[in-house]
């Protein structure tokens, strides 16, 4: 379809539609610099520089006073020596994995419905999906108390139908509560990229599949689903990465066993006065998340799952 819109210029080389008319006269490199500069500056000041500070901090003996200029590996040694940190890290990764999996599972049908059966109401449905994100994050977390609390909706309902005779407590303050709350929070973030990926699928492909005798479920498995994988991957990353470092939700609903590594990092920075340890833990998370992501991206690119047909 895109090839139809492509214009041949006088020299016969093809350009992406749009670029050649508006930005005519500016050399390609100039265009590139102008387009990339704002994002690059943003990244340098708000990501690269803070990251360098974090790395430097992690090698200091202390964040303040005379000890702040002393080089030390103490925080790293402590990280490997103390199993508590590793356990929390694994717990955080596990919770993130669970959350990402279930979020995708729940948002896929939603996105599918919007993309293929939304019809005229697609934009309305999109808005409905996004509206909850306008409310404060904290409020949405706490709202779950109304449902999961010991005198909440779930307990009241179960009591009413007589399934239990005493309210179940500890539903709200648990790892499960953290997972449930986060899934709820992230659904729009996962649904949107999947929706976009599904919408890009040309209806013609599905018609072709059915013309060639495939049943709807076969068409879904062989055509729709593979083509939506880039969206799923994007959604997974949107959910997984912020969840690993999450600390508000576990602090609010996690109870004694639902705390995550983010809570300890927060503690080290705010109350423990141990900024080097906090920095080390932050970097450890970064590495733990980055390595599998880079590997996954490699594999995805090789197998063409990220689309683009390069």
């Amino acid at each position: 379809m895109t090839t139809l819109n492509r214009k041949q210029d006088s020299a016969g080389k093809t350009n992406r539609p749009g670029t050649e008319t508006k930005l005519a006269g500016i050399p390609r490199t100039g265009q590139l610099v102008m387009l990339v500069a704002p994002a690059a500056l943003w990244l340098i000041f708000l990501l690269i520089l803070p990251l360098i500070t974090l790395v430097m901090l992690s090698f200091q003996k202390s964040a303040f006073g005379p000890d702040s200029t002393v080089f030390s590996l103490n925080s790293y040694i402590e990280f490997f020596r103390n199993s508590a940190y590793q356990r929390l890290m694994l717990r955080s990764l596990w919770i993130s994995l669970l959350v990402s999996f279930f979020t995708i599972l729940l948002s896929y049908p939603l996105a599918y419905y919007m993309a293929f059966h939304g019809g005229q109401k697609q934009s309305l449905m999109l808005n409905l999906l996004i509206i909850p994100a306008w409310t404060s994050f904290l409020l949405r977390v706490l709202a779950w108390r109304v449902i999961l609390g010991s005198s909440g909706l779930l307990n009241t309902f179960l009591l009413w139908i007589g399934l239990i005779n005493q309210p179940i407590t500890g539903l709200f303050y648990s790892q499960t509560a953290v997972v449930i709350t986060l899934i709820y929070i992230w659904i729009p973030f996962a649904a949107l990229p999947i929706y976009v990926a599904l919408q890009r699928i040309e209806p013609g492909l599905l018609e072709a599949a059915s013309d060639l005798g495939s049943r709807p479920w076969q068409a879904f498995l062989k055509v729709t689903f593979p083509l939506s994988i880039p969206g799923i991957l994007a959604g997974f990353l949107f959910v997984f990465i912020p969840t690993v470092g999450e600390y508000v939700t576990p602090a609010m609903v996690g109870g004694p066993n639902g705390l995550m590594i983010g809570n300890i990092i927060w503690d080290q920075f705010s109350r423990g006065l141990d900024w080097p340890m906090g920095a080390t833990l932050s970097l450890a998370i970064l590495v733990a998340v980055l390595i599998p992501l880079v590997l996954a991206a490699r594999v995805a690119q090789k197998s063409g799952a990220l689309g683009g047909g390069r």
Partner: protein
Amino acid sequence: MKIYRFHAVILLTALLATLLAGCSAGAGPQGIDKPEKPLVILEWTGYEINEYPQFFVPFTDKYGNNLKDYVSVSVFGDDAEAFSKIQTGFNADIVHPCSSWWGLYVEAGLLQPIDTSRLSNWDDIPDVFRNQGEYNGKQYFVPWDWYYEALLVRQDLVKELPSSWADLWDPQYAGHVSIWDNGEVSYAATALALGISLKNPTPADDKLIKQKLIELKPNLLTYWLDYTQAIELSASGDAWIIANAWQDTFASLLDEGYDVAYVEPKEGYLAGVCGYAITTNNTQLDLTYEFLNAAIDVQSMANFTNEYWYGAANTKSIDLVDADIVKTLGFTDLDYALAHTTWYPPLTAERRDQLSDLWNEVKAAP
């Protein structure tokens, strides 16, 4: 053209004149001239001078209309948080930590000594409070409020009232106990439950207490983070026992009509005294002493006890306190009341780090 400019100049002068006149007419009350910048007070949540002017009556009466020109308040919910904030460069003029943390402030060179001759009610503060704020022969703290930590129990929900710190581990309260997310106080409560002295803890004690705190987890609903959450947990009925709750939590739940009891464990209350100190970079000493005098004023302190049921360092204020409160909390005989308490021992920097690590390990345990 020229005429227009002339008009404009006149108009402008007139405007400026009225503005200036307005300023001088609106200038603050007499006394100390309006300071260049307000005094910055690092304060516990729930004590803010702008929210609770009755705790600092003479000061707020005098500056009430322009209070924000004279003081600005920044709040904290935990001593560790306050200390970290000030260590990391927050410029406060007056701080309000509690006794176990006092030494750390002095040690870090954050404070200047207090000239007690400038405090009009100094003699009404008993030695038992004053002595804790004295370092190297100099007074660094003006004791202000003192508190108990005990078991706050929803007596309508439990079958049996707890009577000891050790009852936190009782399975009959499983899933309904909440302790403070604070290593220092949870350590102290456990030590009392096990009969371990808080003075000179050994590594073996630390190990035992850590283990015991991990064993408490199945009984826990959640850790409470601050006073507001403690109230909320008890009010919702989710938490039957709030450990290390202060009197104000009890008072505010009673006010709202909840059937709560404030149980003194048989090992005794945990207790601490908190007080104001002047930081080294505070240059507005006149205004500072005016504030301190207002804080330890008899009426201010009585208003404070009436509101939160905390003990007042100025014991003269007891005559102005509601008789029921005095009786409930045993304030009538201070010596008797204090004999029933274990004071928090002073922390050192090393101990602070140890407790912080111990607590992190407890929280990270499966």
